[in-house]
């Protein structure tokens, strides 16, 4: 048994947690360390899209239309793909113009028209209030059902309860209090509520977890997984039909129109606009949300069909409303805690929607309905009031309370009637009427104020006639006569078969006719007239927002005179004197001025002030207020066009200039790099020549010294003479070798070397090399160990060159072996796609620092200044060049005192070598 007080306590505890989160979020925002400045939080808060209509209603919809509930979530997924362009543009525009609601957006674009702002507000309020009622109803119904736990009793009609026992009333009051506390805590120039967004993101998490929990419970707890449920449902013909959609053109048409409708809703519902545009901290968060938000929708829908089928199998007699399956299934299984968790999930869905929606609507009502009226009332003497911000806040608070009250009244009146059940889509269709005006606003400069008004009025009227009135009639508030016979008995005017169109469901039917009327009137009237001065300016600002990043663009189309002494108090009245002064000071400092006194009230400042004000009271009212203190000289339309044209020409020139200078910079950088390379080459050449001459001089000097001794001392004995001549011969050989290698190196480097690649058996190459070095090995009494694998595939290489490499490595190894018990090992084996050869010695080893150097030209092991050089210092560089030419690599591994291992690997893959050759030839061709 779940006592009422248990449910109430848990619910209040949950609201308390929300409160704490919101409070913490606001505190952190005030401290400048936002907790919502993360793309994941942004994506989660977007999930305010999922209300109780999703949480409980999806299952209900699925019970009657099967898989037909999905388009509501597929549409937003598709739309997310366009966010990169569309949403980004709306966010950019809204931030630049401090737009705080969808009504303000439309009003601002079409010449800051109070009329349009008001119209959008009215449509939004009429369309959304029933939707708020639906949330109240869902919470109140589930509360009642949960109260009777463990019995399953469908709630009686709301009217049956006396007013003071009606839980919905208390829910509405609590929500109003909560919204007022966090939606209108202070007046922010950008209308952002960080704490509220943090709470909404948390709520999205809770409702997702609750739905997944109940889904997993039904699927795996009551039944044995998806397969089991689908198998059982398959056996019941009525359930089997839910797994496909009726195969007719109509049902595909309806499917598409629902998808289309939800695509528009995700952009245009006031709560979505509030969260995605107004509350957006950083436009880059949109990127992650583009895929994270659809993922959320996917997750929350996975279990809808299993729960529906499970519920229908469990309650085959239809005694339990499918809308409540999410709650009643855990209840009937006596899962008390889960049922309570589901209730909290539903509460999350409802409160999230109600809070954001009422905040958005209250801003609209305040800025676009109440303020324009109030400001006109001379008798209120508003112009004399010092601080108006308090009044603004109270208007919003009253608006929130009023909207929730209206929601409650509608709920009391409608009860279980059709008008409430079908309202989700009817609301969607209402806000869809904003689509032509909004998308036209950002992509079509030709749309005019009159066009927008005409379109909205026409669309709204058709929507009312084809959807709202029939829903009233079906609820029994109107006579059904006009539905069956048509208005005035004219069959062509039947609201749901307008002009005889049949074969569409009511939503698709209404969507078609209302969009036709809306777009037709918008485009038609726009094209028939000409836009006014302000409209033209705003149109350019909106449509070209990505090209107009410079601040103060909006001030170009304003001319007149004003006084700082008038502007500052005006802004102060709405934002508070302190905040106004801060804002003006910031503006002064941006322009290099020390104080507000030095400010000139030029067009830019007037525009800045108006934008500041627009954040607080909406762009239309802001314009009126600024006009009341500034004397504006009216500009003609032609003048405005000229200014805008001139501006765009200047921009085009400057873009060209930028382009040119960028190209120039690139060319300079390239030249500089080429010059550096030339210098480097020059330095290398000098180094090379000086090293070569040094290397040549050493043998020459000793040859010359010994020759001179021989020449000058004819009395020298034969043994001595022989020894000297032996040295001369050896030095000459060294000289020859050196010159040969220098020439060889030069050839290799210039790419002029001749190569004769053939298929080579590495085994034989090594044996040949070992034979050649045999005498040297014997001389030094080195032990040679060969560990050669048999049967290896051939490699593509030049025979003589490879012998050259082997000889070099072998003679190096022998050279550095210790005089006693020297030991050289040669290994040959296959290593994946390479043939690898290791030559190991047990000499002194090579220090890490030297390991790189020895591959440079004329580097020799040991101290060349004291010890007599043992080689030319070109052997290893040449060997490396050769190996690399055949696509392999040559390297050394060694540690001091533990000998050295020189290894090279050659690829076995032939085509690879060919490619390398082509590449090196290309490289050669490029360099010369």
């Amino acid at each position, binding site marked *: 048994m779940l006592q009422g007080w248990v449910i109430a306590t848990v619910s209040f505890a949950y609201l308390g947690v929300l409160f704490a989160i919101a409070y913490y979020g606001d505190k952190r925002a005030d401290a400048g360390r936002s907790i919502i400045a993360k793309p994941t939080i942004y994506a989660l808060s977007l999930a305010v899209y999922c209300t109780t209509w999703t949480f409980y209603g999806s299952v209900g919809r699925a019970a009657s239309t099967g*898989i037909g509930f*999905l*388009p509501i979530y*597929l549409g937003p*997924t*598709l*739309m*997310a*793909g*366009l*966010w*990169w*362009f569309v949403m*980004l*543009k709306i966010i950019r525009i809204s931030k630049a113009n401090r737009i705080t609601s969808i009504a303000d957006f439309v009003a601002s674009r079409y010449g800051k028209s109070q009329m349009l702002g008001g119209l959008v507000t009215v449509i939004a309020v009429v369309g959304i209030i029933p939707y708020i009622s639906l949330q109240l109803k869902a919470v109140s119904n589930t509360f009642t059902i949960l109260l009777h736990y463990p019995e399953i009793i469908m709630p009686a009609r709301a009217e049956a309860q006396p007013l003071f026992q009606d839980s919905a009333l208390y829910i509405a009051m609590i929500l109003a209090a909560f919204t007022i506390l966090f939606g209108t805590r202070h007046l922010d120039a950008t209308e952002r509520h960080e704490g509220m967004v943090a709470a909404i993101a948390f709520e999205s998490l809770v409702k997702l977890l609750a739905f997944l929990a109940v889904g997993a419970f039904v699927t795996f707890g009551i039944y044995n997984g*998806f*397969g089991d449920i*689908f*198998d059982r449902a*398959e056996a019941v013909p009525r359930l*089997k039909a839910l*797994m*496909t*959609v009726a*195969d007719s*053109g109509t049902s*595909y048409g309806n*499917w*598409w129109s629902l*998808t289309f409708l939800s695509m528009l809703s995700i952009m245009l519902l006031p709560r979505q606009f509030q969260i995605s545009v107004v509350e957006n901290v950083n*436009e*880059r968060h*949109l*990127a*992650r949300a*583009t*895929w994270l938000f*659809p*993922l959320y929708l*996917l997750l929350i829908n*996975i279990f809808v*069909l299993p729960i529906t089928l499970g519920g229908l199998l469990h309650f085959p007699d239809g005694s339990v409303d499918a809308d409540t399956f999410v709650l009643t299934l855990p209840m009937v299984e006596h899962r008390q805690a889960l049922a309570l968790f589901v209730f909290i999930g539903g509460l999350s869905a409802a409160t999230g929607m109600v809070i954001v929606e009422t905040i958005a609507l209250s801003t609209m009502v305040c800025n676009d309905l109440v303020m324009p009226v109030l400001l006109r009332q001379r008798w209120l003497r508003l112009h004399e009031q010092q601080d108006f911000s308090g009044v603004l806040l109270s208007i919003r608070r009253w608006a929130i309370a009023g909207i929730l009250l209206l929601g409650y009244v509608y709920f009391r009146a409608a009860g279980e009637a059709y008008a409430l059940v079908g309202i989700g889509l009817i609301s969607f269709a209402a806000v869809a009427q904003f689509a032509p005006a909004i998308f036209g606003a950002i992509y079509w400069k030709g749309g005019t104020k009159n066009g927008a008004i005409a379109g909205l009025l026409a669309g709204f009227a058709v929507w009312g006639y084809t959807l709202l009135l029939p829903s009233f009639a079906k609820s029994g508030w109107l006579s059904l006569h006009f539905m069956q016979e048509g208005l005035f008995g004219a069959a062509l005017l039947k609201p749901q078969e307008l002009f005889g169109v049949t074969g569409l469901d009511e939503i698709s039917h209404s969507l078609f006719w209302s969009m036709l009327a809306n777009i037709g009137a918008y485009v038609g009237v726009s094209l028939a007239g000409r836009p006014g001065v302000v409209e033209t300016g705003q149109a350019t600002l909106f449509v070209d927002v*990505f090209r107009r990043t410079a601040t103060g663009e909006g001030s170009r189309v304003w001319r007149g005179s004003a006084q700082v002494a008038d502007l500052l108090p005006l802004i102060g009245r709405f934002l508070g004197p302190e905040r106004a002064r801060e804002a003006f000071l910031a503006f002064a400092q941006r322009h290099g001025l020390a104080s507000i006194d030095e400010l000139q009230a030029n067009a830019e400042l007037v525009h800045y002030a108006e934008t500041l004000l627009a954040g607080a009271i909406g762009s239309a009212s802001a314009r009126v207020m600024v006009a009341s203190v500034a004397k504006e000289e009216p500009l003609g339309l032609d003048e405005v066009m000229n200014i805008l044209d001139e501006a765009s020409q200047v921009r085009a020139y400057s873009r060209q200039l930028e382009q040119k200078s960028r190209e120039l910079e690139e060319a300079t950088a390239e030249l500089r790099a080429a010059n550096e390379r030339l210098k480097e080459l020059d330095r290398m050449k000098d180094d090379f020549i000086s090293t070569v001459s040094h290397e040549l001089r050493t043998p020459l000097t000793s040859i010359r010294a010994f020759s001179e001794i021989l020449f000058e001392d004819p009395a020298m004995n034969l043994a001595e003479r022989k020894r000297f001549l032996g040295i001369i011969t050896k030095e000459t050989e060294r000289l020859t070798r050196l010159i040969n290698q220098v020439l060889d190196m030069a050839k290799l480097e210039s790419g002029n070397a001749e190569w004769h690649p053939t298929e080579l058996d590495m085994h034989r190459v090594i044996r040949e090399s070992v034979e050649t070095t045999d005498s040297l090995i014997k001389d030094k009494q080195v032990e040679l160990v060969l560990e050669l694998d048999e049967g290896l595939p051939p490699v593509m290489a030049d025979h003589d060159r490879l012998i050259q490499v082997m000889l070099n490595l072998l003679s190096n190894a022998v050279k550095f072996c210790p005089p006693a018990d020297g030991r050289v090992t040669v290994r040959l084996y296959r290593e994946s796609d390479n043939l690898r050869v290791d030559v190991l010695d047990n000499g002194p080893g090579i220090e890490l620092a030297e390991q790189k150097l020895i591959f440079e030209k004329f580097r020799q092991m040991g101290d060349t200044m004291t010890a007599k050089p043992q080689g030319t210092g070109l052997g290893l560089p040449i060997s490396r060049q050769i190996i690399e030419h055949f696509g392999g690599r040559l390297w050394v591994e060694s540690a001091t005192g533990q000998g050295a291992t020189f290894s090279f690997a050659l690829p076995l893959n032939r085509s690879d070598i060919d490619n390398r050759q082509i590449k090196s030839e290309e490289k050669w061709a490029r360099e010369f």
Partner: protein
Amino acid sequence: MNPSGITGQRLVAVFLLGCVLFNYPLLSLFNTPGEILNFPLLYIYIFGAWALLIGVMAYVIEKRKD
């Protein structure tokens, strides 16, 4: 986020792909009684295509360079 970069165009391509996947006539191919791995054909097709779209969008966005 750069509205003129390649990422936006890729996402529009994903959008167009989605429009085709979730519409007649492709939808009708799967709108038949039948099962894959015990799931109804249409159910698994829609959720599969949905997951695919999200995956591609995630890949395009998270791997972007502009």
